[in-house]
């Protein structure tokens, strides 16, 4: 009798775990996909992928994609799309180069001016989308052409550079080791330990609160494994970085922005309202949400982040070229969709978009190290994007 009862309880427990897994397959799947891809390339590149110098490069190479993916996720959650970000990024980079190199404007003035230009570009596009209800696809397609043309015009078809050292630091600088040891870089290690501890501590705190409110939570085993992987990976990466040149400035920028936007989308009323507006714009409007203003703001924010990405990209190349940012919007959008956002809006997470961008980045990097041609790289990236979305749709159909 007790046997059957405990069996039933075990069966229940197993069912709830598998049920939990099924409903959160996307979240875990993404994390494991990233790990699997990294392990794969680590093996086939004979350990080159995770060398300290390559890890540093991975961050430098992908920083601008990740920064724009943050904004793109919000635009897509709001039910729109922005095709102009690659061109805007190129345009702002060109503007910075012309200002600093040709007009001798100080760097400290150029950077805020360029960010303001990004905001204005976002506002100009968002205005038509939000208040005139012109499809964002069309408005931003137009923007893509316009700003591509304007970068060419601004640069007069030439590359402009190089930048002064102070501007380059934006991208290629490293946080100096405050402890003065140098190698291993104690600052990087310390940041890694603090960040890992913070992630685990916040996870535990949320878990405790959920328990207090009787909210169902992920099974303990899952919680432990997931946190162990995330904290472990973080410490590993930081250790590797510390044995090279320490924390890249961009990584810090990226990390802080990711935390800010994750907080904004998940914890604040404005974030909640953007999800509501993307999920059902009519219902959101009838619930008193200023849907037009919010849509407008998502594009303003996107413009700001595209401008920041433009500065970082130009700083990394140490020159502004007319081709900068070409087709980058596609990588950004792909990262967001690989990260689990839905084309119809209302669904998607910041962390997902960041992981999606890393998946793309690691694949680019790994395939390049392997010497795979750019032709095959494109094909493989395309298939990965398709597979990720098919996986989403299949999952949803199975649940529904």
């Amino acid at each position, binding site marked *: 009798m007790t046997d059957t009862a405990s069996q039933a309880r075990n069966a229940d427990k197993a069912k709830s775990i598998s049920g939990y897994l099924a409903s959160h397959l996307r979240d875990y799947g993404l994390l494991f996909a990233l790990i699997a891809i990294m392990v794969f390339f680590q093996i086939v590149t004979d350990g080159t992928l995770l060398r300290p110098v390559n890890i540093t490069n991975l961050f430098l190479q992908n920083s601008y994609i990740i920064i724009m993916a943050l904004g793109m996720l919000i635009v897509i959650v709001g039910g729109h799309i922005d095709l102009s970000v690659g061109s805007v990024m190129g345009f702002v980079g060109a503007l910075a180069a012309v200002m600093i190199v040709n007009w001798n404007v100080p760097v400290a003035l150029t950077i805020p001016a360029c960010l303001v230009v990004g905001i204005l570009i976002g506002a100009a596009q968002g205005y038509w989308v939000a208040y005139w209800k012109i499809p964002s696809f069309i408005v931003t397609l137009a923007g893509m052409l316009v700003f591509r043309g304007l970068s060419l015009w601004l640069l007069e078809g030439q590359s402009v550079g190089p930048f002064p050292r102070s501007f380059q630091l934006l991208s290629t600088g490293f946080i100096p080791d405050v402890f003065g040891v140098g190698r291993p870089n104690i600052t990087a290690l310390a940041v890694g330990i603090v960040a890992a501890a913070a992630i685990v501590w916040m996870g535990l705190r949320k878990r405790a609160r959920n328990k207090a409110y009787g909210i169902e939570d992920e099974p303990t085993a899952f919680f432990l494994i997931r946190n162990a992987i995330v904290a472990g990976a973080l410490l590993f990466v930081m250790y590797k970085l510390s044995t090279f040149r320490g924390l890249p400035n961009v990584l810090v920028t990226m990390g802080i922005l990711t935390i800010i936007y994750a907080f904004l989308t998940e914890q*604040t009323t404005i974030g909640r309202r953007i999800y509501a507006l993307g999920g059902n714009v009519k219902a959101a409007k009838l619930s008193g949400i200023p849907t037009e203003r919010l849509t407008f703001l998502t594009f303003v924010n996107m413009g700001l982040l595209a401008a920041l990405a433009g500065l970082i990209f130009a700083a990394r190349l140490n020159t502004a070229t007319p081709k900068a940012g070409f087709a980058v919007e596609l990588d950004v959008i792909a990262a967001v969709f690989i990260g689990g956002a839905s084309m119809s809006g209302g669904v998607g997470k910041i962390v997902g978009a960041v992981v999606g961008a890393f998946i793309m980045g690691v694949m680019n990097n790994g395939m390049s190290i392997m010497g795979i041609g750019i032709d095959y790289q494109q094909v493989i990236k395309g298939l990965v994007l398709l597979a990720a979305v098919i996986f989403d749709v299949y999952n949803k159909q199975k649940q529904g």
Partner: protein
Amino acid sequence: MQTLLEMRNITKTFPGVKALDDVNLKVTEGEIHALVGENGAGKSTLMKVLSGVYPKGTYDGEIHYDGQLAGFAGISDSEKLGIIIIHQELALVPLLSIAENLFIGNECAKAGVVNWHETFRRTEGLLKKVGLNEPPAAQVDSLGVGKQQLVEIAKALSKDVRLLILDEPTAALSESDSQALLDLLLELKAQGVTSIVISHKLNEVRRIADTITVIRDGATVSTLDARKEPITEDRIVRDMVGRDMSQRYPERPRRAGDMLLEVRDWNVWHPEHAARQVIRDINFHVRAGEVVGIAGLMGAGRTELAMSLFGKSYGRNISGSVELRGKAIDTSTVAAAIRSGLAYVTEDRKELGLILEESIQRNVTLANLIDVSKSGVINEAEETKVAERYRAAMNIRTPSVFQKVVNLSGGNQQKVVLSKWLFAGPEVLILDEPTRGIDVGAKFEIYGIINELSAEGKGVLMISSEMPELLGMCDRIYVMNQGSFVGELSAVEASQERIMSLIVTE
């Protein structure tokens, strides 16, 4: 005279509902046959069975057409035999020309190549037949609704119609357009076309119909022959509503308190057709603790009235005043209307009321995030507490408040919408068809919730197409027709017959 169509013992069940129960309909060749009944009586379902929208095998009973046992697998089958149905929502492609619309799916073409010359020639002939003086190349959305209706009829004629079915053909038409349409139907009759007309407008029915079949609750009540004896509208109304009030409504002490909401001289124009007035000079009030109903047929303008009041969500050139407890309130935006103490529970909860892919919790707090947040940061634990409170109070049946609302039944979804608006803390709730599409048990629970609101001194304005529901729940009922209030009845005076006759006599 010969029988063209006979539908025998038609029974059609949807999961959980018997929409048609042993319905019989007999249509004689060359007559105009009117089909009347309340909203939801089963008229449209019956016509969908006939035209093959519900294919053979999904219903019980027999259809005899032109002396032969028939049964259609789809619309194209019934159209082949000349049965053409024109739905209430017109099925025209707005951006194509009249000529293109007339022959859509039936093009004058050889090997896939359209013969435009032939198309235009035939279009001109058909337009002449229906008396529409427009060039065949005119784009359909440049025409008014009345003319579009004529295009639909011309389209039916192009398919060699023998039995023409019109579902509420005059519902959206002006008086003169309606007259023209009725004349056309009489003319088509003279040319030998048999018609079935579904209508709520009994004066029109009396004018054109040879035979009238009344359907109520999915069953045939009577078939009246207007050629033998004149049929009075009273007679038809009695058959339409003549059911006894078998549903039960929870009891509530009726007491009207202080004046709460007062709306004066409310006028609204159509958002796209600037010349069309949708709401005309409406005045009404709701007292504290009062449940006030708005009765009317579909298209009377009830939802438009509610939405125009709620943050000008519908219409343009809105004028009039809204007062709450004697003070003018701001209803210029939805947010302002909510702050002023109004809430509007929409008719279409899936399209307008809920974010289906979000959790119950997130839907409940959506209209009042301020109360679960501090300087813009949401306290999710507090939010869960709120959701749990409403889950218990409303008896929302769900394993958890984190469940997506898309997974809930209609009744439970409606309770989530109600929770959302109660959490917004309104003084007056406008409920638009609050029990549409939900089962009897959940209806009873919702009535209970409405009564509790009234006991708390809130005002409830309830729009419903189910008259027994209004009669069972309301202290007062306004009767609305074509954008105006045409009568006001107290609970004591109100009856289905009186409401119906206020609507149909103008």
